[in-house]
């Protein structure tokens, strides 16, 4: 029949119209992310042994860390910075980490107002996160 395709098209759009919405109301409803999403980094200060393996594994030299020796001649983490503007979230740093102190997390709300805020002080973030929790 001539014009059958037109009717079919109308039928499909009508079905969509009465069917459920597939959108999420983002700020009110948080999306359920797939398990493999990598969108943020977290550091456990207690576990870190300041071995610098993460900084060496990073393809974009995102990670900069400094450490000092304590009385027992053990390395203690002093500063730990990540330049998120260059980070790929490839996760190679977490694979390199021998103590699993550095982990990839699924926080995705990383929007910022100033470019400087992309330079993350991981120790401060860990502290703040501890406070929030």
């Amino acid at each position, binding site marked *: 029949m001539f014009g059958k395709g*037109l009717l079919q098209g*109308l039928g*499909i*759009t009508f079905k*969509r*119209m*009465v069917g459920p*919405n*597939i*959108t999420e109301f983002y700020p009110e409803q948080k999306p359920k992310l797939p398990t493999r999403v990598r969108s943020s980094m977290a550091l456990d200060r207690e576990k870190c042994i300041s071995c610098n393996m993460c900084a060496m594994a990073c393809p974009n030299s995102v990670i900069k860390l400094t450490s000092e020796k304590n009385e027992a001649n053990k390395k203690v983490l002093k500063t730990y910075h990540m330049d998120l503007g260059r980070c790929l979230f490839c996760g190679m740093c977490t694979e390199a980490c021998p103590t699993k102190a550095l982990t990839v997390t699924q926080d995705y709300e990383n929007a910022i107002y100033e470019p400087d805020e992309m330079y993350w002080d991981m120790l401060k973030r860990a502290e703040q996160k501890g406070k929030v929790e």
Partner: protein
Amino acid sequence: METLNNLFLIIADAIRSLFADPHSVWANLTMDVINFIIVVVIVVLAALILILLERKIAGWTSQRPGPNRLGPRGWFQTIADALKLMGKEDVTPAGADKFIFKIAPMIIFCLPMMTLAVIPYGRKMAPINLDLGIFYFVAISSISTLAFVMAGWGSNNKYSLLGGMRAVAQMVSYEIPLLFSMLGVVMITQSFNLGVIVEAQASVPFIILQPLAFVIFIIAGLAELNRAPFDLVEADQEVVAGPFTEYTGLRWGLFFLGEYGNMTALSALAATVFLGGWQGPAILPGYVWFFMKVGVIIFFMMWVRWTFPRIRIDHLMHLAWKVLLPLSILNILLTGLGIYIYRFVMGG
């Protein structure tokens, strides 16, 4: 029920009875002014509701909820849009033909008010009961072609002018099948009066007697209104806005409102001529039936818009001159034959 059906007539009589002579010049003038205000309110309300409904339907067809932030489920969105348009700068291009540039949106916004004035909204509820109702309606709505050219010419912009030209080519072509599709109905009822046409549909609406004419009317009507899939004039994604390129703020908004007003007017005409106007089972008053039918046609137009892709310009002309026009002439021929056979069988 009868009271509810005649509610507006009773109110009109009450207002008339306030005058010493209920049919004096002043009483008629007062009623005319009140009718005019009602028609204006219908146009403005229709535009406000339809703009939102269009966005809602666009959302629903693509499985979104549509605007949903302002007010309950987003139903106040149009008010915010209107306020935004009013707050915008009103720019008139330096080289524009200022007078034509400024009156073009006003003309396009006035047309639906003029055309909606002859539509019977209920039993004896036509604001103006014209004997040449259909003729008047078509004559007035063809002026919108002129408004498009004025907008294109007045903008003093070659692309706007081209847009205007395209609008004229399209609208003039589709006016002919639009007119011819209604001729069948006029032949059956022997009248141009919309009130008489509605009365004639008491037993059977003309969509059953004239299905081909109804299909032609809807297709040609969509093209006449410059709505998708025939919106080559505006073609949001391709040519910005055709003749409206230079318009800003409320002037542009008037074109937008005019488009929805014209859509209401054409849907009202379709409901009157083909769907039986205010005729319907007596469970609801006539004017409710009428507005429900108009709503169904408007919904269908929006549904079509968000289903089909835009037609190509040579296909557009092809469809008008080589398909719709012969079909509408065929419809007239068949209607004539049908009337002749009917008279012959009924022993005329």
